[in-house]
């Protein structure tokens, strides 16, 4: 029995390292392994240890809604994309536009990043690629004004989906978070119920700072879901486990590449299995 207990400790240590390496977080990893140790004791030697820990992770990830909320039929569904710099917001907007286009929907994108060099041109290039209209102003303009014009145009043209791209911003920049709140207010004032989704775009390579990002974006403008990008790399994106556990925010979309088709709905089982590969 003593020998078997030693084997379990090695296995538990290995699992803890896998979890830490997946960016689950050191404290959370040790809590999960403690829970696992108790469960293994109680379950005897029937269930495989890996299956138990996977189920524990699925319990955290599984609940919550991975569906994109839709507007009343006949009004545009508005989805706003937010997040820190370089996470993949603009590319994810384009991918989702492509997804809806291939299903025959009328899609519009709003170029509300009026700050970064060539941000508008980047979205316009994507608009041509995926067949979606782009509403934009000049660089340096007021992003809320772009959002306002886009909502007007979306209603006037009977658009099914209006996807709003915003500038990358660090959650620690109070004035930029205020700007984001204003963009959301302008959208909401003009279309009751909108934005129907506010998706926080998180790079899968991000470490513990993603929790801070999710907390602040959520408390400032409310986040309804996460788009986890760059999962085609070697990073596991385990940080979304902490975000779901602490803030209840579910992952809705996953980015797995740079092309228009590289977007999938979040599959918790696939995600958890990948952690242990």
């Amino acid at each position: 029995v003593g020998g078997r207990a030693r084997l379990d400790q090695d296995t538990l240590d290995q699992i803890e390292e896998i979890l830490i390496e997946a960016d689950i977080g050191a404290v959370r990893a040790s809590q999960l392994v403690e829970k696992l140790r108790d469960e293994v004791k109680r379950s005897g030697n029937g269930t495989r240890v890996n299956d138990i820990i996977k189920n524990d992770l699925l319990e955290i990830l599984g609940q919550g809604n991975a569906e994109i909320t839709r507007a009343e039929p006949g009004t545009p569904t508005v989805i706003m994309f937010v997040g820190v710099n370089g996470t993949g917001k603009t590319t994810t907007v384009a991918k989702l536009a492509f997804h809806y286009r291939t299903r025959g929907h009328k899609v519009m994108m709003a170029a509300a990043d009026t700050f970064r060099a060539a941000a508008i041109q980047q979205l316009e290039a994507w608009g041509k690629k995926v067949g979606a209209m782009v509403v934009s102003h000049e660089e340096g303009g007021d992003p809320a004004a772009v959002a306002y014009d886009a909502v007007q145009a979306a209603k006037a043209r009977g658009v099914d989906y209006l996807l709003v791209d915003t500038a990358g911003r660090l959650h620690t920049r109070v004035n930029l978070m205020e700007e984001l709140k204003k963009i959301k207010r302008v959208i909401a004032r003009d279309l009751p119920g909108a934005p129907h989704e506010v998706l926080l775009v998180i790079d899968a390579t991000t470490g513990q700072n993603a929790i801070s990002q999710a907390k602040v974006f959520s408390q400032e403008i409310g986040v309804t879901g996460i788009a986890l990008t760059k999962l085609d790399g070697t990073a596991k994106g385990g940080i979304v486990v902490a975000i779901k556990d602490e803030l209840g925010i579910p992952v809705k979309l996953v980015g797995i590449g740079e092309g228009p088709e590289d977007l999938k709905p979040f599959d918790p089982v696939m995600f958890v299995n990948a952690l242990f590969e």
Partner: protein
Amino acid sequence: SLTAKLQEALRRLRGKGKLSEKDVDEALREVRLALLEADVNFKVVKDFISEIKQKAIGQEVLTSLTPAQQVVKIVLEGLTALMGGKEARIAFASTPPTVIMLVGLQGSGKTTTAAKLARMLKGQGRRPMMVACDTQRPAAITQLEVLGQRLDIPVFSMGDKVAPDKIAKAGLSRAADIAADVVIVDTAGRLHIDQELMDQLRDIRQSVTPHEVLLVVDAMTGQDAVNVAKAFNETIGIDGVILTKLDGDARGGAALSCRAVTGKPIKFVGVGEKLDALEPFYPDRMASRILG
């Protein structure tokens, strides 16, 4: 803060003469946690902790410090030394132009950093030129051209239908024509596991033999930083790292991971979106930021 946590853990050590192994183990448990929460890679943490343990055991507790402060002092010194000790600089070529190539994962900040570097070097009296070798991302070339216009720094590009290594080579010969003495090559973001794109990077490197290949890494990168740094260093070789987005609240443990796994120094840090937001890297400041 870590010092506060250690004070608590080592409270009963007041008045004790030396740090015993048990005292050190207890303190290092807190240090390990602090480093992991700061996103230092767990293998790097393991190695660092065992190294520090050796240094700390049997040390006389200095009368001016509490045992907790003593441990923090040893850890900070160890981190600073690991981080590179002193400031690293661009290695300029004896015969111009100096070629600097920026590489890294998607979205890490390469294009913005290329412009920041160019601005800094122009401010030092040099004549930089930027080369747009990202033929993949929509409007990437436009992005670099817009930045170049804002800074009144020339940008060489050949559109997105020409192979990036050919663009780089042509850029180098244009630099000779306009007597530019620094050429900064911006490349497309890519995954270190994308064989084809890593080969492309090697082609670009071979076509212009850069004096500096700098890996641009996002300060909020987690455990994956070691994989990225190791792969880029082994595949094309890097001379240093630029850590971006340090103006946020990420602890930046990726800095330690990159340094530990490649041995290469962090040369600059990006501290904002504006083009003047580039600073030299200070190892001691980074060490205390990581420790928290």
